[in-house]
């Protein structure tokens, strides 16, 4: 039996000689809510970009276990869409929706890797394609309801209020049926009430059996939600443990207070 879903060892990335990630070791357990925290510019987003194939790591290994008894899959060197297909989906720190598409269509894009219709299917619109299309619409709508955006179905994503856009990004990622959901600062720019709501939503999603790894800039915020926290500073992991342990870790305090 294997309780790990993601195992990262020795992960390093450099941009023109500057190490943005330095020999990072991490492992995420099945069905937990874990957080990566750290000061601005610590390399958190870079870490996500490596996991999702947007950046190529210069060294290290990323192993993904798509189930308790599943064989390990190396995500290193895979294209972003292949990684999503394996079951890792993400949101972006600076919202990256498809602004000219409707809210529903944005979520439908998330269904892309879980559907098959080809050009011929599109042209002839045979029964299988129609069924699939209906399935995409129904599932997408259900997910929109789940994140509380059912009222915006045909609204262009670019016209949604900021908080709704963040939720839509989560809905879109959920549509890809991920086993591991990566959330990059899901509460950034939100007011306290919205932040509370989004944290609640994340808790609900996790209760469905998803593993969640989230980045949060604000340490206090993750304390209540996460079981385990990893602290990164200057591309290196400086601490890991339960919220209680992190709170009292002198290295973490130093990194945050900049002493």
């Amino acid at each position: 039996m294997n309780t790990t879903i993601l195992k990262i060892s020795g992960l390093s990335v450099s941009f023109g000689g500057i190490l943005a990630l330095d020999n990072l070791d991490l492992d995420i357990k099945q069905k937990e809510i874990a957080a990566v925290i750290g000061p601005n510019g610590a390399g958190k987003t870079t870490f996500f970009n490596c996991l999702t194939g947007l950046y190529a790591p210069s060294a290290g290994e990323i192993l993904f276990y798509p189930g308790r008894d599943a064989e390990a899959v190396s995500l290193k060197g895979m294209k972003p869409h292949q990684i999503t297909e394996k079951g890792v989906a993400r949101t972006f720190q600076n919202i990256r929706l498809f602004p000219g598409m409707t809210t529903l269509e944005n979520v439908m894009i998330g269904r892309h890797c879980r559907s098959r219709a080809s050009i011929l299917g599109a042209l002839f619109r045979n029964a299988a394609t129609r069924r699939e299309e209906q399935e995409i619409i129904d599932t997408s709508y259900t997910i929109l309801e789940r994140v509380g955006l059912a009222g915006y179905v045909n609204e262009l994503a670019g016209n949604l209020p900021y908080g709704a856009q963040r939720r839509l990004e989560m809905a879109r990622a959920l549509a890809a049926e991920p086993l591991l959901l990566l959330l990059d600062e899901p509460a950034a720019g939100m007011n306290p009430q919205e932040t509370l709501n989004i944290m609640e939503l994340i808790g609900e999603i996790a209760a469905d059996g998803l593993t969640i790894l989230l980045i949060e800039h604000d340490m206090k915020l993750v304390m209540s939600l996460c079981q385990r926290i990893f602290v990164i500073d200057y591309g290196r992991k400086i601490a890991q443990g339960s919220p209680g342990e992190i709170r009292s870790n002198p290295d973490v305090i130093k990194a945050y207070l900049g002493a």
Partner: protein
Amino acid sequence: MPACRLYQELKRSLLVALWFIFLTFPLMVVKVDLVERVVHWRWKNMLFVGLAGFFFSFLGRWIMQRKNPGKALGKGTAWSLRFCPDPKIRKILIVLLLCLAVAFPQIFSSYQTTIMTTALMYVVLGLGLNIVVGMAGLLDLGYVAFYAVGAYSYALLNYHFHWGFWTVLPIGGLIAALFGVLLGFPVLRLRGDYLAIVTLGFGEIIRLILENWGEFSQGPSGISNISRPGFFGLELSLDAAILYIYYLMLAFVLVAIFIVGRLQHSRLGRAWIALREDEIACEAMGIDKTKTKLTAFALGAFWAGIIGVVFAAKTTFINPASFTFLESAIILSIVVLGGMGSIFGVILGAFILILLPEYLRALAQYRMLAFGILLVLLMVFRPQGLIAPGRRAYFITKKPDPET
């Protein structure tokens, strides 16, 4: 409108008028008399241009204001819903248009029919490029290359092997699609202006090869005596051939509309649009960027290839001069003017860009000037194109929501 707003609009209109005076100054004001060797300064013309520019600019702004107060540009609902919300009326209109299209050669002269055939060809070219530029957001300035590939496929296969129109039609399309993929591979990583430059170069390379590789393409003198499309083995008279090609083009237009329409709201079409909207989010959401881009290039090129074959068969003579950058620019203008990503817009754009210069002939030497001014005005007042593409609205039947 409120006073300060009015003042602003007046100021802007004044600037527009000054700009027009500046633009048209060499044409409208300065007149060099070569016989008398004097320059006439027609200041009165300048006044007219200024007044007209001011008036129309202000009028345009006022109309825009009235149409959607608050926001300058309306965006959102699909054109069809905005213009004629009743689907029944829309259907009747479409049927009427179709009847008109079918009856057109009977009503008008064969000269008019030829012009209309050309317009229909540009409709399909526009729809093809619309896949690449409008939907997938890949700025392709070398689209004419695929058109040339189609035309030369037919010309050469006909010249060397006497292959007929109907045999080469799919082959020409497929060869062009292959070239689309060939262009697509090296530019997979490029975006925006870089992509535009490379595709521009690609278009020029194809033209230069055709121009300079004499043994292959017969160089600048071109290939003549290309067979017209056969009609079940019958040789058609010139008039009959014009009619025949017109109806062929009409059929192609309908097929192209059908195909592009179906693709637009399919899984693939959504992937194209997502690619246009945000490439990084698109691949992070599980869309194979490579495949999606290549299918866009290939499908776009396919239509250009098909129309290339038709072009060669219609004119029975082709040379590289028909495939210059200007041609790419016109097709791109059709897509941009009509409204990127909108099928109806592209059709409208093609008609305006191809038919208008013909019917502006009445203005004699001012024809292209008038045409240019019209285009500038159109783009100033409708930067999103004549018909802004709307997204499809989905009506959820499963669980009706009180809010929608």
